[in-house]
């Protein structure tokens, strides 16, 4: 028996083997398929038993958003190729089972295999369903592996370029991801970045915005080296940047990249409000660490500041924040360190008012010569960039030859400045820019509720105000750009207790002030624009609701560290049936002085004079003083006194308001 069985075994095995190998190829694959089908059934049943498609990891991989009314079951991805099941966009279960089915049926082993197109799904399914490498061998995804090796990332940072002065379209800022290489200590500039943006041929103007809002352009993830973005934001648009280094482990980063690989060919309908850059970056961060669930709470509007706030609030996520000043800040810092004659010299050299001659600056010390030349060269670079930008915005196209000649002159001047600097045997410390005391995530929240008690021409009232976004000049400046205001969708409702009467007071659709302070080198213009429905005292009886559009241009100066002043020339268009042709046009002037008394106190004085020249012939004025006191992080008291004359006799107004940010 023993002998027999001992002999029998090898015989059986060898005969079985020979049978197996002698089977025709078709039968072999048939047997393999039967085997695979069996495996597939096992895993599908296992998945169903655990209802694993309900797990946050799978939902994150399919980009199923959570919403105010519970979980939505429709993926945000709009690319059909992203789904393996025809029902995939709507059914997480169908998509999961289709993924399993394809993993176990498709035998090709190359770059187009499902496992190579959806490596993150595979990795997750392997882990959750215990699919080991003997049941489903590893694929040779050469292209994917090359891509991962090229990125070589082991860390993550979120980058936040703050808004552009003078460009409120970008006032919300922007966010993108940087893939860091910490182990190799590679320089940041060379790191790749992941950006989510609308993929449009023409990136500016009203058509772009309209299309963007209604999802007319597809949104995509794209990669570019960090130096390209620094150049665009910091050097050309003069936006300071904040780098939020996150605590993701190399394994988490790798998993996120596997998922990014799945997303690169996919597109999302791009809605600016709810599906913008910020939302999709958070979704990507959720993929790498689903427990964070950063996208939760962003139901339909996410601003970049909200993104960094969510990151800063997630426990243990933030490791370090770095500030990268823009060229404009560097110039201001350099200039502040220099006495006036040196500043004058540097500016004249940059503008070409003064030819660079050695005896001219040779009477200065070596380091002071170096400082002058470095400042002049930075300033010239700034001028070149802003001139280019101006041409971009206004689409000015003077003759190409003129531009070319101008560019050549500037290039020559820059070359001479730098060549002269290189001959000076002196080493200066890097310019000392001061990092703002508050980071963007530490600013107040954009939405605001206010309750005010007021008295207008000795008639008391209660007023309820709401503001959807974002910041006004009297809000705390920390985390925001000084001298910039963007208010958006702010309706007001009034209640007159004496008459027990409610009245719609008006709505501010948009109210922008861009008042960057001018200094010796940086000399931007200020402007204001607003569109609103609001009530004006038309005669002594009636306060009429009017369409109110204002535009103003002016100049602003930072008089001291705490005092800023602006003067404007204003125009106003009022629309109401009471005017001839239902419209009145006014010209006027206004001025505003803002005094930041301390962290908690702000005061301001404002005067406005408007002469109507069409539609009605009246003079309107308003002089007001305002005092604001921060109570806590998210609430404040505001007292405002004003003397007004609108279209009837003048009146006095006093208001005390309590404001709450949320």
């Amino acid at each position, binding site marked *: 028996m023993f002998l027999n069985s001992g002999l029998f075994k090898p015989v059986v095995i060898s005969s079985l083997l020979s049978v197996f190998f002698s089977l025709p190829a078709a039968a072999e694959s048939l047997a393999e398929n039967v085997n695979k089908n069996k495996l597939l059934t096992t895993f599908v049943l296992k998945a169903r038993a655990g209802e694993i498609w309900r797990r946050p990891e799978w939902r994150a991989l399919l980009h199923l958003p959570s919403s105010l009314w519970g979980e939505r079951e429709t993926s945000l991805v709009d690319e059909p190729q992203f789904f393996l099941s025809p029902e995939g966009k709507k059914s997480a279960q169908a998509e999961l089972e289709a993924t399993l089915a394809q993993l176990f049926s498709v035998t090709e082993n190359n770059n187009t295999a499902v496992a190579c197109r959806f490596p993150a799904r595979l990795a997750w399914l392997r882990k959750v369903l215990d699919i080991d490498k003997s049941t489903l061998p590893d694929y040779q995804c050469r292209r994917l592996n090359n891509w991962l090796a090229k990125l070589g990332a082991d860390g993550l940072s979120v980058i936040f370029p703050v808004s552009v002065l003078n460009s*409120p379209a970008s006032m919300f800022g922007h966010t993108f991801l940087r893939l860091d290489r910490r182990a190799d200590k590679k320089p940041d500039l*060379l790191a790749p970045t992941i950006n989510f943006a609308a993929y449009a041929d023409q990136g500016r103007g009203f058509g772009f915005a309209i299309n963007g*809002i209604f999802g007319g352009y597809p949104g995509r993830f794209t990669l570019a080296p960090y130096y*390209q973005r620094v150049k665009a934001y910091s050097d050309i648009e003069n936006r300071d940047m904040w780098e939020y280094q996150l605590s993701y482990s190399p394994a988490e980063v790798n998993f996120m990249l596997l998922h990014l690989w799945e997303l690169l060919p996919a597109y999302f309908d791009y809605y*600016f409000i709810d599906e913008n850059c910020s939302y999709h970056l958070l979704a990507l961060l959720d993929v790498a660490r689903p427990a964070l669930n950063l996208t939760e709470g962003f139901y339909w509007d996410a601003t970049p500041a909200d993104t960094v706030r969510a990151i800063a609030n997630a426990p243990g996520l933030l490791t370090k924040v770095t500030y990268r000043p823009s060229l404009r800040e560097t110039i201001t810092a350099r200039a502040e360190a220099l006495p006036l004659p040196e500043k004058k010299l540097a500016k004249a050299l940059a503008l070409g008012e003064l030819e660079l001659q050695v005896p001219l600056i040779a009477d200065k010390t070596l380091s002071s010569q170096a400082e002058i030349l470095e400042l002049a060269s930075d300033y010239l670079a700034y001028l*070149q960039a802003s001139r280019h930008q101006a041409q971009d915005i206004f689409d000015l196209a003077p003759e190409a030859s003129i531009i070319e000649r101008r560019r050549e002159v500037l*290039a020559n001047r820059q070359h001479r400045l730098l060549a002269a600097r*290189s001959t000076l045997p002196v080493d200066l410390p890097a310019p000392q820019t001061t990092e703002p005391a508050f980071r963007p995530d530490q600013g107040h929240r954009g939405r605001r509720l206010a309750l005010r008690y007021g008295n207008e021409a000795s008639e008391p009232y209660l007023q309820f105000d709401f503001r959807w976004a974002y910041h006004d000049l009297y809000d705390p400046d920390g985390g925001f750009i000084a001298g910039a205001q963007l208010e958006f969708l702010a309706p007001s409702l009034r209640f007159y207790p004496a008459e027990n009467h409610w009245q719609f007071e008006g709505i501010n659709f948009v109210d922008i002030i861009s008042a960057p302070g001018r200094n010796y080198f940086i000399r931007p213009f200020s402007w204001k624009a607003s*569109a609103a429905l609001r009530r004006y005292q038309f005669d002594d009886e009636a306060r009429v609701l009017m369409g109110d559009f204002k535009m103003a241009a002016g100049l602003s100066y930072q008089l001291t560290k705490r005092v800023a002043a602006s003067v404007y020339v204003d125009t106003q268009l009022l629309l109401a049936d009471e005017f001839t042709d239902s419209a009145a046009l006014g010209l006027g002037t206004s001025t505003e002085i803002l005094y930041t008394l301390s962290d908690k106190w702000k005061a301001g004085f404002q005067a406005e004079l408007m002469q109507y020249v069409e539609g009605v012939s009246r003079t309107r004025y308003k002089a007001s003083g305002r005092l604001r006191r921060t109570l806590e992080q998210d609430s404040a008291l505001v007292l405002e006194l004003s003397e007004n004359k609108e279209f009837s006799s003048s009146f006095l107004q006093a208001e005390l308001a309590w404001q709450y940010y949320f």
Partner: protein
Amino acid sequence: MLYRKLVLAIATVIGAFLLVACSVTTAPTDASSGTTGQTTDATSDLTSSTTLDDDEDDSEEKQQEEAVEDFVAANFSQLRADMSVGRGEYLGSLATLLAVDDIRKEAFYTMTKNNFSQLFVSSSTSAKELVLNLKQEMMVAKI
């Protein structure tokens, strides 16, 4: 009530324009085309990898060479400013791209400052010429 409609229409357009939030400036390639001093080629090898091209046939050396050229072309004016003082973030990144040893980096930085006029012969020196000049000077200085 015509004016009410007008108010709404204008307000909507303004609102739409503002809502571009993070998008109007999200295309740095758009903004950086033909900028400070040097026209840039925005398509780097990283961007092109988003199109899932097969480019693994390129040797590592060639890829590195391309990376240097892309970097110099995109950051020409920043590099020039850094070289004129012999330090800076861009110059440091270039040294890494050129695989300069850590102990030779200081020498490399000083060399760019001292030989500035050889590296940038005139204001029309191109990125390609700069890379060539740089390699030559590095050979001479044995970096």
